[in-house]
């Protein structure tokens, strides 16, 4: 009886050991600090959500990271230590911190949204966690360009006028326009001025952009974003067509006419030979 009890005890210990090893072999736990509480996101805001992926398996695994199945459109990518990643390899028995960087793309179609974040292990095991996202409309800023297209001559300046609207429920402070310009193009006026807007108010900005004289003729895109202390708007892109300055052309034609006159004088003076 004593030996039977010992055998049962040993067997049950063995079962416990086996069952625990089997469960860790297939369990790759994924936890996020904000997963349980959800993520508050304002339009134009870029947020980073920390996720922890734990590999409880006995061997190292590579995890492929994806996120989707949301109602709203988001711009998102995963990063680790500041570097953008799509896959992560986690040694056995350790966990790794991954950041999900997320911002709203365009306008939100729903206020309360869910985002399925998946970590697919190299052996096909899939872990999904639904991240709840609440779109915060306290702060909302939109920008609209007054012109669809702008023509400018190289070496001259172009003026861009924008209307900026506070679509949120709270005040927006120190709103300014942040331009993204091609190389050697500079915003000479207007980029430093700031305004404050109350909810529903509209402000106007005029930015003067200098196009260098060395700029070859062509079509370019100039991008602008309205930025306040609280939030930033979507980026607006304005097509700009740069036309060649007539200066160099006039120089060429002038020299050509001068040479033509000298040639004519030569012919008149000496006649045909």
């Amino acid at each position, binding site marked *: 009886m004593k030996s039977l009890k010992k055998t049962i005890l040993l067997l049950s210990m063995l079962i416990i050991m086996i069952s625990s090893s089997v469960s860790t072999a297939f369990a790759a736990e994924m936890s996020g600090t904000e997963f349980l509480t959800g993520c508050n996101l304002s339009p134009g805001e870029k947020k980073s959500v920390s996720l922890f992926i734990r590999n409880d398996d006995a061997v190292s695994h590579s995890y492929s990271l994806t996120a989707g199945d949301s109602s709203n459109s988001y711009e998102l990518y995963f990063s680790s230590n500041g570097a953008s990643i799509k896959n992560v390899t986690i040694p056995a028995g350790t966990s790794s911190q991954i950041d999900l960087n997320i911002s709203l793309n365009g306008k939100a179609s729903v206020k309360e949204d869910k985002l399925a974040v998946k970590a697919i292990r190299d052996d096909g095991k899939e872990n999904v966690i639904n991240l709840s996202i609440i779109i915060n409309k306290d702060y909302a800023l939109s920008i609209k360009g007054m012109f669809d297209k702008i023509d400018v001559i190289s070496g001259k300046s172009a003026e861009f006028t924008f209307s900026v609207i506070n679509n949120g429920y709270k005040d927006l402070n120190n709103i300014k326009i942040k331009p993204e310009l091609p190389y050697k193009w500079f915003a000479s006026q207007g980029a430093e001025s700031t305004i404050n807007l109350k909810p529903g108010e509209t402000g106007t900005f005029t930015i003067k952009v200098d196009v260098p*004289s060395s700029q070859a*003729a*062509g079509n370019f895109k100039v991008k602008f974003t309205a930025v306040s202390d609280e939030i930033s708007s979507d980026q607006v892109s304005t097509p700009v067509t740069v*036309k*060649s300055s007539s200066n160099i052309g006039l120089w060429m034609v002038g*020299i*050509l006419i001068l*040479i033509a006159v000298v040639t004519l004088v030569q*012919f008149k003076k000496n006649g045909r030979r």
Partner: protein
Amino acid sequence: MIIEIAKKEIRDAFRNKLFLSILVLLLVLTIVSIILGSYQVKIAMDTYNNSISFLQSLGKAELPPMPNLNPISASKGFVNYIGMVGALLAIVLGNTAISKEHKNGTMRLILSRGVFRDTLLNGKLLGNLAILAGITILTEIITFVSLVVIGGVALTTNDVIRLLLFFGMSFLYMTFFTVLSMGIATVSTKGSRALLITVIVWLVLSFVFPQIGDTMDMDNQIPGGFFSSMGMSRDQEHQVLQQFKFYETLRNGVEEMSPTKHYERISYALLNVKPGFETNTPWEVVGLKWVNLLGLLAPSLAVWLLTYIAFLRRENIYQSN
């Protein structure tokens, strides 16, 4: 008389071994480059068609749109070959046109038969331009045939016009070097010296001046960009560039003196190699790049007029070299 002189120029050119060697080199390079370019277009087309078939076999209804294959960019390599080999061919052609008459002592013979000097120059230029036009048309035909037969693409009307305009620019570019070569050969007393001077001028115009534009750009001084390496903000960058305004104007001016740069700029815009011209019509591209077109035309005309003056005033014309 002009036509007779031109015809003789064409006959003589095809007896010139140096010209024929360079012509063969240019044609071989062009054919290889166009065929390779056409194959690249074909591979891209096949890849797209295969992916569409695969998606259709999976029952997918939403198919990706066809990517912009830009078949006319198959001529991209041709820009470089014309820039180097084409220019050399034009130089040899122009130099031989004048120096052979000096060398053979036929200059005085022709001029003593009541042929005006300007008529002689015009006839020679016409003959050489006809040769260059023939080479351009030949490469044009090779390009169209390769793109359609090998690439398997149907060119749009805009593509055809863009290609025709591009070959027109190539012709103008080679014309400049023929005119320059004839001009220097007219001024110089020795044909070999004239050829050497023309080649030096070509090297300066085609390689030194464009390089000044690129390498002397302040931001190109350090790999990765001077301003970003120095950790400068856009405002600081602006302030620095304001201090170097004269330098920038000078650098830009030197670059504008290069016909090669003008040829590259207008050609890359027409061939859609340079992004930003895809939505423009071919004529809009020419309208935007009118300075580059003028940069190809005006120097040729100016050099040609100066050649008239030099030839008209030259007194030692009856001396043979």
